[in-house]
């Protein structure tokens, strides 16, 4: 049952791969033609040489006949070499082009995948699909092109030629075929299984190393080295064992095939000797047979090797296609409107939302925020501000109800234009690898240097940027690298300062910016907030008190809504929170 479904998947994957290859069928047909030509030529050369030898042995050495045969053979060798090279080059081109196409497709997919997919899948897994799996697939595909075609053609060609030369000796060779097939497929199967086991164990070990070494400082601080080492040693031993078996089986291939070759060779030698003695065959043809015997067994190993490799490649391809075929975000509708500079009036009507169906988070939520109003979000850590951002910026769609900006349902707007109307400064700093300038420019790629400078000064980031070795051209890494947590946040603020979007989402993160710097930023923040609609994850009492609307969140749900006085009068969660944090 499982096997058939595996087969089915393989078949479907193969079909999909073929769709990608189809684009290059012209080249592929050319490659197959070249393969046929080169195989025919390769097969013909021994015959010519055999004829030449017969000229020596039987007919009193006719140098003319020998030389004409040899010259013909020589030119054929030359042509073969050229066709082979062309074939290889074409195969390479097609294989890498296909892989290139698939990889681009996969990456494009990443950008349109709903965040839900990325939030629920491990990063490592996605990366390995786009990089490692695609690579493995490329290798398999290339091998398939180069060796499968030539292998099969050579096999058929050799058989035909041998049959025309001498049926009896051909039978000797064919009799050995099952042996050759059996050995090759046995080794291939074993090796495949062992390598799979090895890569699984390696994955296990890598995960362990990743966790321990990635947090080596904690390991050290707790003196956990010894226990970790024991665990590592056990895994290491296990991996060594798997690796031993895998390498051993794969190294069997060479001696075994050489053995089968030798048996065929000896068989042809003995059988040939009898036939020659009985006068039914010439020595030259015999010599042909010997070289065919050599060529005949070789494709078997190649083909069986290619088959496992192809299976492997298909498995990888299946994983990539899984990603490519994952449903993307519902595309913007055809008549989606482009939101220019919004006024910033936000309305939520009967909004319901949950990440998983059985765990309701927000239900029947109504909110209306006027232009330039401030909304403070208050609540204990992990209260669900991310959810709110996910909905406002339409990273996730609401289940029921609607969110409107300037009286337009955000589903009727293009995502891009909606998102460009928001500016965000969050606790997790969002930097990308590149220069400081590039990072600041992110929201406004065409900003001039003067604008950038002005924004950086307004965000109090200019002074530290100036002190960096290369100033605005300093390259920072994804996690900010040389910058301190506070500096990273200042950069993000600069970015928003530059964009000047009509709506803001801010996190009054107090944890990584020291209070003195924070004071400086606050004034800039206030300037930025003026006239703009803001959602503020508030930690500061003054912010909360001055907000037009306070949303109290707890465990992902919005439990209270109103202004400071209203909420205090309610004597609910807010008043409790307020009393414990600020009044106490």
């Amino acid at each position, binding site marked *: 049952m499982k096997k058939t479904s595996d087969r089915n998947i393989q078949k479907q994957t193969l079909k999909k791969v073929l769709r990608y290859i189809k684009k290059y069928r012209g080249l592929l047909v050319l490659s197959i033609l070249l393969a046929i030509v080169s195989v025919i030529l390769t097969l013909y050369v021994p015959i010519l040489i055999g004829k030449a030898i017969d000229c020596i042995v039987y007919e009193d050495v006719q140098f003319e006949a020998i030389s004409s045969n040899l010259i013909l053979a020589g030119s054929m060798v030359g042509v073969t070499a050229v066709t082979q090279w062309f074939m290889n080059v074409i195969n390479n081109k097609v294989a890498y082009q296909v892989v290139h196409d698939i990889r681009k497709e996969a990456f494009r997919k990443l950008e349109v995948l709903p965040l839900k997919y990325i939030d629920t899948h491990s990063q490592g897994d996605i990366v390995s699909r786009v990089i490692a799996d695609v690579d493995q697939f490329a290798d398999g595909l290339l091998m398939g092109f180069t060796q499968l075609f030539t292998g099969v053609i050579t096999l058929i060609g050799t058989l035909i030629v041998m049959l025309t030369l001498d049926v009896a000796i051909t039978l000797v060779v064919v009799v050995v075929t099952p042996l050759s097939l059996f050995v090759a497929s046995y080794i291939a199967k074993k090796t495949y299984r062992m390598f799979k086991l090895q890569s699984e164990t390696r994955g296990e070990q890598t995960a362990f190393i990743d966790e321990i070494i990635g947090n080596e400082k904690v390991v050290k601080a707790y003196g956990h080295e010894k226990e970790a080492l024991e665990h590592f040693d056990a895994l290491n031993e296990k991996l060594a064992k798997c690796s031993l078996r895998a390498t051993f089986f794969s190294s069997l291939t060479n*001696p075994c095939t*050489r053995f089968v070759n030798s048996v065929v060779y000896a068989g042809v030698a003995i059988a040939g000797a009898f036939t020659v003695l009985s006068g039914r065959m010439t020595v030259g043809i015999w010599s042909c047979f010997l070289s065919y015997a050599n060529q005949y067994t070789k494709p078997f190993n190649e083909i069986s090797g290619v088959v496992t490799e192809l299976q492997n490649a298909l498995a990888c391809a299946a994983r990539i296609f899984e990603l490519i075929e994952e449903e993307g975000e519902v595309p913007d509708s055809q008549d989606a409107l482009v939101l220019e500079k919004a006024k910033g009036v936000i309305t939520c009507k009967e909004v319901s939302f949950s990440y998983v169906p059985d765990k309701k988070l927000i239900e029947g939520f109504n909110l209306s925020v006027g232009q330039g109003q401030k909304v403070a979000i208050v609540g204990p850590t992990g209260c669900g501000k991310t959810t709110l951002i996910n909905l406002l910026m339409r990273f996730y769609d609401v289940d029921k109800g609607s969110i409107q900006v300037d009286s337009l349902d955000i589903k009727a707007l293009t995502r891009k234009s909606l998102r460009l109307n928001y500016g965000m400064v969050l606790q997790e700093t969002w930097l990308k690898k590149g220069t400081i300038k590039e990072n600041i420019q992110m929201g406004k790629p065409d900003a001039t240097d003067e604008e950038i400078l002005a924004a950086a000064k307004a965000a109090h980031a200019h002074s530290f940027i100036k002190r960096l070795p290369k100033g605005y051209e300093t390259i920072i890494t994804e996690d900010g690298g040389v910058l301190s947590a506070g500096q990273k946040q200042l950069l993000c603020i600069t970015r928003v300062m530059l964009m000047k979007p009509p709506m803001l989402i801010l996190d009054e993160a107090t944890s990584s910016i020291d209070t003195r710097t924070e004071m400086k930023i606050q004034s800039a923040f206030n300037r930025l907030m003026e006239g703009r609609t803001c959602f503020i994850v508030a930690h500061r009492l*003054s912010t909360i008190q001055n907000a037009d609307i306070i949303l109290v969140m707890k465990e992902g749900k919005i439990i209270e809504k109103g202004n400071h006085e209203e909420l205090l009068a309610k004597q609910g969660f807010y008043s409790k929170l307020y009393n414990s944090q600020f009044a106490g």
Partner: protein
Amino acid sequence: MIKTLLAQVKEYKTTSILAPIFIVLEVIMEVFIPLMMASIIDDGVEKGDMKHVVFMGGCMIGAALLALLFGVLAGKYAAYASSGVAKNLRGSMYKNIQDFSFSNIDKYSTAGLITRLTTDVTNVQNAYQMILRMFMRAPFMLICAMIMAFNINARISLIFVGAIIFLGIALAIIILKAYPVFTMVFKKYDHLNASVQENIGAIRVVKAYVREDYEVSKFKRACENVYHMFVKAEKLISLNMPIMQFAMYSCILLLSWLGAKMIVVGDLKTGELMSLFAYVINILMALMFIAMVFVMVTMARASAERIAEVINEKTDLMNSLNPIYEVKDGSITFENVDFSYHKDPNNCVLEKINVTIRAGETVGIIGGTGSAKSSLVQLIPRLYDVTAGQVKVGGIDVRDYDIETLRNEVAMVLQKNVLFSGTIKENLRWGNKEATDEEIIRACQLAQASEFIEKMPKGYDTYIEQGGSNVSGGQKQRLCIARALLKKPKILILDDSTSAVDTKTDTLIRRAFKEEIPNTTQIIIAQRISSIQEADKIIVLNEGKIEGIGSHEELMAKSHIYRDVYASQMKGVDEHETK
């Protein structure tokens, strides 16, 4: 570098030697086969001696069987040796990394270390196996076959010499041209990898700033680059087979032509000519293999260097020669401490630090971003060594203690809180392997973590995902504090470890500490003044120097930085109170 790696062969020396020996035996057997073939033709067929044909045919099969046996044995020993050496390499690297000091760790990135432990080791393992099997096989085969050929007829065998030179030069050119392209490809690959990784990690940024198209085109360019390079390199490598075949058939043709002439004069027999044909293949294939091994080894060289670097890295934090195994009490003294991460006295992050902390005191540290608060406390459990001056714990220089003893007495909750995959209990037992369930529950109560743990479906046996992704930031911090408490340390350092905990819980934690573990010296780094206001002593750090030390009241009077911070944080409250 080679010396370092060879030292790792250790218990696999015998197998490393046996493998090539069996390879040699295998080659000898194989070399005999064409010779027997010649005998079948010249002594059997030409003379009509059928018995001889059968006998020689039998010998050929016998030789083939022996070759198989030797080949399998060689494969087995080579597999043993190479996977064993790989194991040793990983083990040695890992062990050495465990001895690394923090500054050693800072030198390498995690990703870098992981690549060394995985991909690089695999590369070296493959290369080692290749060396054991092919490095002996190919040259030996080449030599044997050459000897045999010259034995048959030296004059005609000169063709081989010509072919070897031709093929050798051709292969060398191909490799020399292709190698740099390949190394470039690998580097570009890293970019590709990084680009995907970054895009997934920062997908919200990309989307929020509507940068999808830009990122796609950037990736496309990187992809295009890799593609072109690959095609370029492979174009060169594709030349290998055709050239090889060309050389082989050219040899056969030449042999036929010259051989024919020699047979006529009687200098060569037909059978001998046939075995020469067989040697052509042997010799040229051997050459091909040498080239292949050469490529593999040069590619593995970079990996080998990276591995050797880790193995040879000396930890710069040595245990003292006569270590002290007992920490008397939790008092701490900094005497004229200077500290630089790069051991550069002119570029210190901490300068002239003098502080005395009595056992059992609670000390708060406050200071701006980058004022070296974390650096200061990391000197106490000797995560780094001071550049100048002395740090004393219990009246003794930290460098005189056994490192493990010291770190067991100084528990530190780092700024970056980390939990490991495993149950909550397992994570907490990092603090103390033998902790009883009661002790664990108690530590969690102190850290205000018991409440949320007990609410979880599996309570203390709840499985924590790698990196603690299934608990919130605040919960993680509280678990980390509980873990530190289980060590029952004499000194407890909280490096901004309650930043994600709400103020109320923060207060509860501090109150619990005060009441339950009054004899433990506590050092608290915080941004919120409310977190440290009640400390016995508050240190105000500014750009690596102490700006003021004292109680809240003293600092309010004398430190303007402290006053500023206080004012900024209390503004809201004051406003409210005056309302």
